[in-house]
């Protein structure tokens, strides 16, 4: 088929679209609406994916790759001493990490439990111990700040890496600080005042918990003895999740190691310059660590056991968007099929005439398919315009909603995804072509005389 003929058929198809304007408009609006809905859902999914991705990698200090003792993901919480990395293991891993140029930052993590007290009462905590330079890197990473302002904006006080040398700083989650009755950080209290031991039987004792920022941490050491240490509340922070916001604390690696009387750590987190190198970095680490790698588990951040919240949430959202996509596909197929079928029936005499002046069955089908294709392309373009405009206004409106488990609510921000738009447009256009082809294929096989006389109906 030559280009001139195609141009001529395209012009004809374009003109034909205007002949049944109301019907085509209705079909086009249905496609536009469906496409817009899909883009908005995809925009929401894209936003949630980015939030959870960077929250997991930087906010939870997981890194792009984590290294831990094999089996520790299941056993560490029960027997941390046996399932942690000792100094020898740390030395081997650190040596290998230092040789890898694709790594932007790596750091040690220690996790554990205990009790945190206000002088009168104690509450359970889940602690993360981290080297302060690593904490600063992760918590100030531009991607974290860009995607999780709903979490970082709730922080009160100074970060723990800014603490003076004579202070043992601790960051306490906001919910836990509330349970402790301590609302002020170290910078908000008069540090010249001497610490007083409270009379816990006083009726108004709760009013005095915030007189200082001192908290006491108590826990069993890893060799089975009771231990305790003092810390100063430098920062109140939100974990972003209801589940952990009333129990989490973050403190320096040295402090937590001292509390548990250990030099071991739970895991290494490795942040890469380019996230695309995640799998190749895992392969390189396995290679470089040799036989020792058999004693370790080196996992990417989006492995279900490492980022269960990310994996679980995204699985749900992808299913939801996929379902919307399927509904959209069905709507498009039915709309186009219905529209094309009615058009073909109405214009059967015209089809007969075209056949009688020499148009082949294929050319006749092509005219109708082009009509469907143009209708769909115009509708999806409008869908993209309406979708982007809606996203703009939604993002500007500052609507806050509260997804399950998210502390403090999340601003509804929809993020356009260019590749999703392209892919969806291609899919929708293909479906339209397919639906029109099916609708037209029957009529194009009819006898010319039947078509011209209209006796086939």
């Amino acid at each position, binding site marked *: 088929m030559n280009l001139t003929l195609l141009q001529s058929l395209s012009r004809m198809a374009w003109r034909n679209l205007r002949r049944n304007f109301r019907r085509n408009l209705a079909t086009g609006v249905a496609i536009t609406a469906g496409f817009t809905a899909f883009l908005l859902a995809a925009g929401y999914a894209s936003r949630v994916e980015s939030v959870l991705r960077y929250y997991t990698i930087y906010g939870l200090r997981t890194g792009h790759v984590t290294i831990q003792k094999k089996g520790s993901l299941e056993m560490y919480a029960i*027997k941390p*001493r046996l399932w942690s990395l000792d100094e020898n293991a740390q030395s081997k891993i650190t040596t290998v990490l230092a040789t890898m140029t694709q790594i932007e930052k790596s750091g040690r993590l220690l996790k554990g439990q205990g*009790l945190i*007290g206000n*002088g*009168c*009462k*104690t509450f359970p905590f889940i602690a993360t111990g981290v080297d302060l330079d690593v904490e600063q890197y992760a918590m100030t990473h531009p991607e974290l700040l860009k995607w999780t302002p709903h979490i970082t904006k709730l922080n009160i006080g100074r970060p723990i890496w800014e603490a003076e040398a004579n202070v043992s700083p601790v960051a306490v989650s906001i919910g836990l600080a509330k349970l402790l009755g301590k609302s002020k950080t170290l910078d908000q209290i008069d540090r010249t005042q001497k*610490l007083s*031991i409270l009379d*816990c039987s006083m009726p108004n004792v709760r009013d005095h918990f915030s007189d200082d920022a*001192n908290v*006491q*941490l*108590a826990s*069993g050491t890893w*060799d*089975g*003895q*009771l*231990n*305790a*240490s*003092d810390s100063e509340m430098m920062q109140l922070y939100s974990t972003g999740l209801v589940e952990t916001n009333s129990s989490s604390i973050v403190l320096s690696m040295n402090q937590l190691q001292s509390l548990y009387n250990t030099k071991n750590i739970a895991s290494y987190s490795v942040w890469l310059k380019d996230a695309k190198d995640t799998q190749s970095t895992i392969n390189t680490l396995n290679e470089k660590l040799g036989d020792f790698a058999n004693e370790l588990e080196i996992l990417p951040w989006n492995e279900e056991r490492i980022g269960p919240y990310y994996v679980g949430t995204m699985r749900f959202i992808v299913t939801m968007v996929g379902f919307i996509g399927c509904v959209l596909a069905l709507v498009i197929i039915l709309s186009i099929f219905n529209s094309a079928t009615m058009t073909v029936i109405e214009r059967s005499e015209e089809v007969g005439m075209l056949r009688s002046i020499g148009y082949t069955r294929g050319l006749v089908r092509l005219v109708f398919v082009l009509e469907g294709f143009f209708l769909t392309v115009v509708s999806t373009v409008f869908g993209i315009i309406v979708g982007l405009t809606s996203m703009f206004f939604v993002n500007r409106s500052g609507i806050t909603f509260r997804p399950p488990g998210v502390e403090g609510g999340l601003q509804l921000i929809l993020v356009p995804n260019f590749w999703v738009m392209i892919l969806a447009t291609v899919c929708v256009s293909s479906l339209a072509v397919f639906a029109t082809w099916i609708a037209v294929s029957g009529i194009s096989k009819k006898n010319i005389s039947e078509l011209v006389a209209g006796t086939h109906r």
Partner: protein
Amino acid sequence: MNYLSSALIMTFGLAISHQQTLLAADPSAVDILKDADRARGSAAVEEGITWSVKVDTSGEDGSNSVSYLLKVKGSDALAEAVAPARNKGEMMLFNDRNIWFFKPGLKKPVAISPRQKLMGQAANGDIASTNYAKDYEGTIMATETVNGEACWKLDLKAKAKNVTYDKIRYWISKKDRLGVKAEFLTVSGDVFKLAAFEYKNKLNSGTKDYAFVSKMTITDALNPKNITTLNYESPKPSKLSDSLFNVNNLVR
């Protein structure tokens, strides 16, 4: 039918008369517990008592040993670690059911729970004197023989949440009124720790010698390899000042 009725009446009558005999013969659970508590450091001497206890733990996670000096007066107690050197100066203050932990370097004492593990299988509440008569609602369930000795088997239920255990099964010898063994239970009634007691120490109250606990062996019910032994030594009356048990005085 008549035989059946007679048998039922006789059985019922015997049961009532046996119950009456039990009630008449057995002292109350509170009295038994008070006597058993006295041999475990509770209120034998009003001015106060001191003793030392060495806590040895062994099991899967290795072994450990810490020695404490105990000072007890009424429902208050102070346990001070005296050895090894790294634990020296650690103190636990028991003000009735409130417990504070303090170690050199802390700015404030830490309020802790009696249920929290002190070391191995021993909870914080195990180290000080026991006052089961006050902390638990006791019921005599049966009479059983333990190590050839006739014992009352008591079921103890915690009166408050801030006591060391929710439920205890406690065997107290009829002859000496000393706790012979105990099973510590979870809220759901599962045994999670077992304890056995020996009484080779004597405490002279000034007027009378009392048997005093010399050894408490605590075994993990799920893993019998995990054993903690509390060896008690040198119980003696001592005039103790009330200020010793003031939490403000822990931070010196």
